[in-house]
């Protein structure tokens, strides 16, 4: 390739990378904005919150079993199949999710055929089997493919819900994505740049926000024991015992328990809208509106139950239990909010929908904006003298050739930044480690080449021959060092986690850029300057 062709390639690459970093600014302000937009800083430098949460998929499995039990009972009744008892086990941890199982006891042996047909037809996602050693008891297990689908669906819906809630907060550029192995970790990574009040965000994400409007069967009672005592020590079938949330924080004395129906009249799924409002006394509350279907059911129910109590249950805690005064169509209020933020946060999570399963936090890393700013400032003030030393040393030690090296290094940094910008990777603290190693290896490549040229000159070769041999011999070494490091980066990227990955990505970009600049660009500059002299006898190196 002629020097001209190579020069054109270099100019094109330079122009392209510069545009990728600064765009087409028309003012200094825009220049700064464009650079900020294109070279994204990681949370550790910019400030923000990094949260890892785990979706408790076993909750979804339990809920699925509950739903199945309800409809199974109905179907069995319709099909005239008798049974003694239906129950499910209760997987407590994520790892036990797959063990979800429904046990159906006391089915007359004569009805086996009917039962099998019913399950196959009506509950195709479940597998029916006889409990070993029994003729009347059966087990229902979720098919493996259904389990996988259920878990995947749970995580997707969780992500969706969390996304809705966070978007409702109006934060800038949040990242919400699945993390780790899909079939074992059930983790969601949430990154919130610039959030300096993560406690509130965490609370908003974690709230399950399961809203139920449920008929009150009995109550209130001062304690669980009192409630049970009245019912002969046994909780009646199809009921739940729920506690009423105390009016003000910390007042445990005002505790009251209600016996409510296990099936709700309407739930959060029937919600159309929710928003904060104030009552006549100026206290904060959250009002909600039901959709058409929900409103119809609610209207029917309230009409026929005037004078009875209805519990407004949020996350299995009774918020209030008002007496139905008259037919209510489509709206209700959740009272007893602490302040405006409380009321609007609840409205937000109600609007965003409820989570299909509980959430547990596994990791939180929050960097305040002041610390991020300090890190950058200190990093720059510490990085500059080092860089300056490198530039001065190269110029002093290699004179004219040193200019080559410095230009090559600058181009290297520009290409590296452009690569980060194109790939959407962010610059983190470990990424800066990658940049340092890139610069180290960039300096090294130039030094290797120049030392080799000097050696050849000392051995008595002519300038052109020395440059040629110097480059080709050093090239071998450079290839080996670079490929070795790229190989190691590939492994780091495949097997490493966040910071390790960030290091690997930055380094690979840097090394590829360096191969181009130290070998191709530097060589072209040499050839260009040598080609301009008529008789080359000396080389400033």
């Amino acid at each position, binding site marked *: 390739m002629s020097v001209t062709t190579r020069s054109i390639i270099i100019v094109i690459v330079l122009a392209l990378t510069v545009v990728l970093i600064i765009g087409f600014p028309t003012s200094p302000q825009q220049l700064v904005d464009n650079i900020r937009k294109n070279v994204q800083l990681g949370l550790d430098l910019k400030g923000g919150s990094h949260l890892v949460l785990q979706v408790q998929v076993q909750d979804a499995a339990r809920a699925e079993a509950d739903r199945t039990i309800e409809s199974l009972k109905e179907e069995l009744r319709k099909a005239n199949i008798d049974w003694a008892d239906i129950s499910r086990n209760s997987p407590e941890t994520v790892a036990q999710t797959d063990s979800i199982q429904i046990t159906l006891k006391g089915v007359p042996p004569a009805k086996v055929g009917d039962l099998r047909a019913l399950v196959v037809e009506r509950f195709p996602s479940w597998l029916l089997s006889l409990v070993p050693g029994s003729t009347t008891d059966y087990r229902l297990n979720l098919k493996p493919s259904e389990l996988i689908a259920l878990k995947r669906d749970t995580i997707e819906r969780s992500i969706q819900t969390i996304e809705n809630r966070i978007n409702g907060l109006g934060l800038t550029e949040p990242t919400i994505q699945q993390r780790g192995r899909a079939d074992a970790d059930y983790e969601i990574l949430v990154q919130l740049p610039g959030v300096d009040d993560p406690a509130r965000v965490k609370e908003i994400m974690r709230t399950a926000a399961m809203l139920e409007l449920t008929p009150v069967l009995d109550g209130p009672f001062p304690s669980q024991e009192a409630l049970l005592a009245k019912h002969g020590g046994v909780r009646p079938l199809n009921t739940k015992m729920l506690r009423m949330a105390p009016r003000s924080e910390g007042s445990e004395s005002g505790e009251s328990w209600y016996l409510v129906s296990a099936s709700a009249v309407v739930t959060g799924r029937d919600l159309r809208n929710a928003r904060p409002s104030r009552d006549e006394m100026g206290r904060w509350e959250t009002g909600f509106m039901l959709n058409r279907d929900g409103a119809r059911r609610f209207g029917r129910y309230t009409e026929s139950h005037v004078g009875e109590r209805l519990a407004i249950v949020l996350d299995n805690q009774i918020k209030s239990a008002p007496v139905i005064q008259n037919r209510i169509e489509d709206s209700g209020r959740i009272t007893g909010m602490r302040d405006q933020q409380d009321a609007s946060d609840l409205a937000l999570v109600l609007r965003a929908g409820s989570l299909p399963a509980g959430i547990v936090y596994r990791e939180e890393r929050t960097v305040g904006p002041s610390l991020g700013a300090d890190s950058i400032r200190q990093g720059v003030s510490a*990085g500059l003298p080092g860089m300056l030393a490198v530039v001065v040393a190269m110029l002093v030690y290699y004179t004219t050739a040193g200019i080559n090296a410095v230009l090559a290094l600058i181009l290297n940094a520009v290409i590296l930044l452009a690569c980060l910008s194109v790939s959407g990777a962010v610059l983190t603290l470990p990424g800066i480690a990658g940049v340092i190693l890139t610069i180290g290896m960039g300096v090294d490549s130039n030094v290797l080449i120049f030392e080799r040229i000097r050696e050849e000159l000392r051995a008595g070769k002519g300038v052109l021959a020395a440059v040629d041999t110097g480059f080709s011999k050093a090239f071998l070494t450079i290839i080996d060092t670079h490929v070795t490091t790229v190989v190691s980066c590939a492994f780091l990227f495949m097997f490493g986690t966040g910071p390790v990955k960030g290091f690997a990505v930055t380094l690979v970009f840097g090394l590829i850029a360096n191969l181009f600049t130290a070998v191709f660009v530097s060589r072209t500059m040499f050839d260009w300057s040598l080609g301009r002299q008529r008789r080359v006898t000396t080389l400033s190196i």
Partner: protein
Amino acid sequence: MEIFKQTNFDFLGNKWPFIIGSVVLSVAGLASLGLKGGPRYGIDFRGGAMMDVKFAGPPPADKIRSALSQHISGEILVQNVGGADNEVLIGTQLKSEQELAAARAAMTQTLEAAFGGPEAGRGKLDFNNAGRQVLIGRLRDPMIRAGVASSDAQVSEAVDAMVTFRDRERSGLVTRFEDLSSSAGVSPKILEIVKQECFLGQFAVRRVEIVGPKVGAELRLQAVLATLYALGGMLVYIAVRFEWIYGLAAVIAVFHDTIITIGLFSLFNKEVSLTVIAALLTLVGYSMNDTIVVFDRIRENLKILRREKLAALINLSINQTLSRTVLTSGLTFLTVLALFLFGGAVLHGFSFALVVGILIGTYSSIFVASPILVFWQSSVERRKRPAAMPAAPAPGAAGRRSSAKAVK
């Protein structure tokens, strides 16, 4: 300018003191690791809660500890942040994932109660620990009522100015409201409203890290595994390009560097965190680079100087690359030294690992990796002697082929 023209130091002749030095350092590091039960892992790897808190005055470590110990069962660590004024790291280990949320809440609340200042808990907002959005929410109505702002945009502009001043100029902690007036767009009237609505807590939380013990253990395992795989990958590549003993020697040298560096971390009681891991990876990359440069020269010389004894040949190769080694290492060392000296607390562990790593990485190419080649060669020769074969420079057979190709 040139530092070394043609040197002829006998590196391998004087290898023993260095090898002994390496062994002593490695053993000391390993011993320290053994005695202390492994490296002192940061919160990332251990599982726990850690907060970086800046105080308005000298932080009362004992008071912090006693205030927190009422709410948190585990041991509470309070440690000064190196190079920063009035800043401490408060940490505690967590035994189960369930404690995460509780520990964080306990830490924040205790700090608020103990160091919030006289005005804390009276319905005012702590300016030093309030986020931008919370401040806007709090100040919007009063500002508009007082007529100092007529739109939401003006409110957020004023809040932005104050928050930027707090975070950029004062590292997150403002001690007097009057200081705020120096930021643009904050009029005395606005300041008056801020004073009514907020108070200045005597501390600011600058960083929070909470990691469950399970996640910590996973992170640790993954970091170690990724590094081991990477080393394996490098070994294979070098083995293909040179010879397998070269790959092994390079990996042993890198191991040597890593062990000594981690050992020094243990000796100096420094924490190994995720950022330190990034620094260790950098040192691995650097040391490997350095070793390959020397090996490459050895491979090249093996082609030209077939009669030379391997030890002498390696010595020559090291001398030939010496000026490059000194220059590159010197410059990289300068860069990381600047980072170590001026980089501040966050970069401290990171740059410490690099400063140590570059020195050891350079040294190990010459005094660890190269002698291994000589030892291997002489042990091969000893085994071959009964067959009365002339000592041929065996290594480089594969390398010769590949390099001959590449030279074109």
